[in-house]
């Protein structure tokens, strides 16, 4: 049974149909190295869209900003430069791969709107620093918005569905939305802040079932300055743990996120918790696979999981691949693009079944 949602259609944002300027994330290429490449491939090959992957754009400096080392004026100027690059390339639709960046762009545009003098100052700063000018984007979208926008087209081209290939039952997916997607401005997200539909819509269109669980809206605990300091990480892990404990009884088959930090944390903290406390939250005593929406779309479209970079996940994704009936070569998992062995991680508790570790529902 799908969840009742009354409001998502009221929170509709405009998402451009074509011609995007692509702004990458700083950290995704390390932790989920195939996702951004998959996004470009899906847009270009499957959807025949025009998207420009500009090597000249920089980090939005959001991590620095949220860690109190980059001042507001600086980040505004950096953002202005990205827009200027977009103008120079002949584009007006800005597509951000990162939720932090998306939040930064949304908030800065809103700040300029509310306080035009800050925009003027930014223009001066950009001119002084780079002799550049800029026009604000006509459309700003997060890349998950764009996949959401074309979810039905992806469903039409699907090779696999989010359905248990043996039983025909829909797979259960937990969707986790990055806080800065819609909690700052509910109108900036599909479905708003309380019942976001951007990932849920993908899961439903591709045959799966969305799990609504008590801590669905809780933050993963990333929080920049909090996890950056090693001694503070216990608080950060605790947030993810709270979510895992809350979702575990629903026996989700996978977690999908739209934020770089959340995807990383929900994946890696499962490893940490299993090693520290011996607890795992998935079925059969192992972890719950955590995917980016591009990886999920890629799997649905029949991309090879190792081309999607899924061998870099901390929690093994094979249980999900097997349920979906995805054909893959287990031997090729740790072979690079050139066919050479790239090294394999040591065995981790999160990927080993043990009856003792099975998570028990606490009452």
């Amino acid at each position: 049974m799908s969840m009742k949602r009354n409001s998502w259609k009221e929170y509709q944002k405009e998402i451009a149909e074509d011609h995007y300027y692509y702004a990458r994330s700083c950290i995704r290429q390390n932790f989920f190295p195939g996702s951004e490449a998959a996004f470009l491939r899906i847009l270009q090959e499957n959807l025949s869209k025009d998207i420009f992957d500009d090597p000249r754009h920089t980090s939005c400096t959001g991590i620095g900003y949220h860690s109190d080392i980059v001042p507001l004026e600086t980040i505004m100027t950096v953002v202005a430069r990205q827009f200027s690059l977009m103008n120079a390339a002949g584009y007006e639709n800005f597509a951000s791969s990162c939720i932090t960046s998306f939040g930064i762009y949304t908030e800065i545009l809103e700040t300029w709107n509310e306080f035009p003098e800050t925009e003027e100052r930014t223009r001066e700063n950009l001119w002084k620093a780079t002799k550049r000018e800029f026009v604000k984007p006509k459309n700003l979208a997060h890349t998950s918005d764009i996949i959401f926008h074309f979810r039905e087209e992806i469903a039409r081209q699907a090779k696999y569905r989010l359905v248990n290939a043996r039983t025909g039952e829909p797979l259960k997916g937990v969707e986790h939305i990055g806080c800065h997607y819609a909690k700052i401005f509910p109108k900036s997200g599909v479905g708003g802040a309380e019942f976001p539909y951007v990932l849920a819509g993908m899961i439903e269109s591709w045959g799966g079932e969305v799990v609504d669980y008590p801590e669905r809206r809780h933050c993963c605990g990333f929080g920049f300055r909090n996890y950056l300091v090693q001694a503070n990480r216990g608080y950060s892990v605790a947030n993810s743990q709270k979510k895992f404990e809350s979702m575990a009884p629903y026996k989700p088959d996978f977690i999908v996120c739209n934020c770089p930090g959340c995807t990383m944390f929900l994946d890696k903290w499962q490893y940490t918790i299993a090693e520290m406390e011996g607890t795992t939250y998935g079925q059969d005593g192992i972890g719950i696979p955590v995917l980016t929406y591009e990886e999920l779309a890629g799997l649905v479209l029949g991309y090879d999981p190792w081309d999607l970079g899924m061998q870099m996940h901390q929690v093994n994704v094979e249980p999900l691949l097997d349920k979906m009936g995805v054909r893959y070569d287990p031997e090729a998992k740790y072979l690079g693009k050139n066919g050479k062995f790239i090294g394999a991680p040591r065995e981790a508790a999160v990927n080993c079944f043990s009856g003792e570790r099975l998570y028990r529902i606490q009452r």
Partner: protein
Amino acid sequence: MIQWGYTINQPRAVNLDRNDLTAARRIIRQMPELQACIACGSCTATCTAGNLTQFNFRKVHTLVRRGEYEGAYEEMNKCMLCGKCRLVCPRGINTRGVVMLIKRELGEY
């Protein structure tokens, strides 16, 4: 062995699903007027102990009513039973009686 450099924080929320409310119910049954506390704070304002120590009568009995018993007995031991709080309470709660009741019921916590 991995050196993590941190441990996982424990939840801070008062969890009314996990807390054992048996003792709280017993206390309220014996002194139902305690539920009428409107947290005006006049007890703490006038409290001899509260002005010199961390003792906060209002906070302790509220926590006890939520099933948070730990340390309540020791806290109540700070009370001098002077009776000033009972004089000021606008809801007429027998505050000294509450101190004695909590000590009697929660000695083992």
